[in-house]
């Protein structure tokens, strides 16, 4: 009843092309943004901001990046964390070696460096497809891992490749409280999410999906295959690079190359799969789910099992449940949480009628 579209007629193509063509959706989004930008920083606890919201947003950004590459363009990648790593180390080096460089410029440049690396590792994608490409991206993952650990220049001669991010300052204004860090990350992620959504509904997005679905047909229409794939790699890596920089500067503070290992790549891949491949919302839903799941499991287990658990058993149980959950998701709803949300909305449209 609340969600009725009745009476809402779209009389121009412009109205039809909107991201949220239904009024209720627009209102909902406006409220969400209001809460996110105004209510949360004023009311949320320091813990919630630092340990939950900031990492969730940053990982959503990385998931967005992977979504562009794997969800829209259909190029399977297991090297996401490597591009984050490049972004983090690049931002650190720009801040270190270029005196007076504005922070946001460092971040943008870090993204560009990551994009360049992404382009290089994307070149094989013209010849190689599917799992072979995935294994090729693993080459990127391991190589970058090794590079930042062994070559001391990247970490300013730190023995283990660890870097400590410089304090953040924008136009003389220090970003040093949880609320400020949260707002910075939220702003950057919002802008990039909007950009991703826009790309998905214009020619670039369509070209990606065409290449994903049937590249021979795409070529016949005139879509340039190599350029489309490279653009996907580039933009995806840009997003992952910025996410990596934010991870180092706004979240961890001190970063070792292991923070961006294969496990991280898998984590982001799961976010995209569980959230929903090929959707912007899926990246956020997946990130939230994956970050909150261990907390939920912890709480549930402590309800069931009084007394102390053997150390390590919790993380092992987590593994088992998580693995089982992935399988269950794949069987029940392969299109992820985003699809479940869509189905919910459709049911809401009809509520209280069953069909």
């Amino acid at each position, binding site marked *: 009843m609340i969600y009725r579209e009745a009476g809402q007629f779209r009389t121009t193509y412009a109205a039809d092309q909107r991201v949220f063509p239904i009024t209720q959706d627009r209102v909902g989004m406006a409220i969400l943004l209001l809460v996110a930008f105004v209510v949360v920083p004023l009311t949320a606890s320091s813990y919630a901001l630092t340990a939950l919201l900031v990492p969730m947003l940053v990982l959503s950004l990385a998931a967005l990046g992977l979504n562009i590459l794997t969800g829209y363009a259909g190029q399977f990648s297991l090297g996401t964390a490597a591009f984050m790593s490049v972004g983090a180390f690049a931002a650190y080096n720009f801040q270190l070696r270029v005196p007076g460089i504005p922070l946001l410029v460092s971040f943008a440049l870090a993204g560009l460096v990551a994009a360049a690396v992404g382009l290089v590792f994307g070149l094989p994608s013209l010849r190689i497809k599917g799992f072979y490409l995935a294994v090729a991206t693993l080459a990127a993952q391991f190589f970058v891992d090794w590079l930042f650990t062994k070559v001391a220049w990247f970490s300013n001669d730190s023995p283990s490749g660890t870097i400590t991010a410089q304090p953040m300052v924008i136009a003389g204004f220090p970003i040093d409280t949880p609320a400020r860090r949260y707002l910075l990350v939220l702003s950057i992620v919002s802008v990039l999410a909007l950009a991703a959504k826009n790309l998905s509904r214009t020619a*670039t997005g369509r070209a990606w999906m065409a290449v994903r679905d049937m590249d021979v047909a795409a070529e016949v229409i005139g879509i340039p295959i190599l350029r489309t794939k490279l653009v996907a790699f580039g933009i995806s890596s840009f997003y992952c690079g910025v996410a990596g920089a934010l991870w180092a500067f706004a979240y961890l503070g001190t970063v070792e190359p292991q923070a961006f290992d294969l496990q991280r790549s898998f984590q982001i891949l799961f976010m995209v799969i569980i959230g929903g491949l090929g959707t912007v919302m899926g990246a956020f839903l997946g990130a939230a789910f994956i970050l909150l799941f261990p907390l939920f499991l912890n709480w549930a287990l402590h309800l069931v099992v009084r007394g102390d658990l053997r150390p390590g058993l919790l993380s092992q149980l987590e593994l088992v449940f998580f693995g089982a959950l992935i399988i269950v998701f794949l069987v029940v709803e392969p299109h992820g949480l985003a699809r479940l949300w869509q189905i919910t909305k459709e049911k809401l449209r009809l509520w209280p009628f069953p069909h």
Partner: protein
Amino acid sequence: MTGKVPGPLLLEVRGVSLSFGGVHALRDVDFHVHEGEVCAIIGPNGAGKSSLLNVINGVYSPNAGTITYAGETRRAMRPHRAAEQGIARTFQNIALFKGMSVLDNVMTGRALKMRRGVFWQALYWGPAEREELEHRARVEKIIDFLQIEHVRRTLVGRLPYGLQKRVELARALAAEPRLLLLDEPMAGMNIEEKQDMCRFILDANDELGVTVVLIEHDMAVVMDIADRLVVLDYGRKIADGAPAEVRANPEVIAAYLGVPTAADDRALKEAG
């Protein structure tokens, strides 16, 4: 249809041969099309019809021969170049993008005409939006023309076969082609659907001025809409002309009906 004056020569394929390993798909085929014509290619299965289309729009490179299109002669066409020069096509086993809606699929047909770069698209407000809306308006005309408005937001993979074929035609028309190559556009359709498709093809030829080359098995359709008929058999062209005269050609009849030739008699005798 008789009475049509053929326009200037648009496409000429000379002496084209194509083989895959030991299989000769095309042998020394000459083929030409005039601007504004509707030309049908017929022949038994495996005759090389699809291969001929694939050569014309660059999916395959021929082993011998030349292709002259819009004045340019070349050894082989490249798909991107073919698309740029106004050749569009549909495929035998529907080559739609299953993960996208009808509207998006048809919009991809406009890919070559959209100029705004990635940055503007990411921003959307401004030049990119204007371009999107402009192309949307054109695409809507084609959707209207082919009567698929009611499914424009449906995922193509969910549509019945007949509608999918129509969407593929829409995508090809969206490119505003000069030459339209249709590979069995009516396969698997019932009589009503075929009549609709015939109407669409003829209207496209008439109103939009598109030159059409189509592969088709249904003789009634072919007789009805084609200005000219080309017959292929075992990779060779065995007839080329107005439908009525081709139909009466004894070699064509033999290829289709399997009337035994002298070679068949000899083979039977040798087998004892």
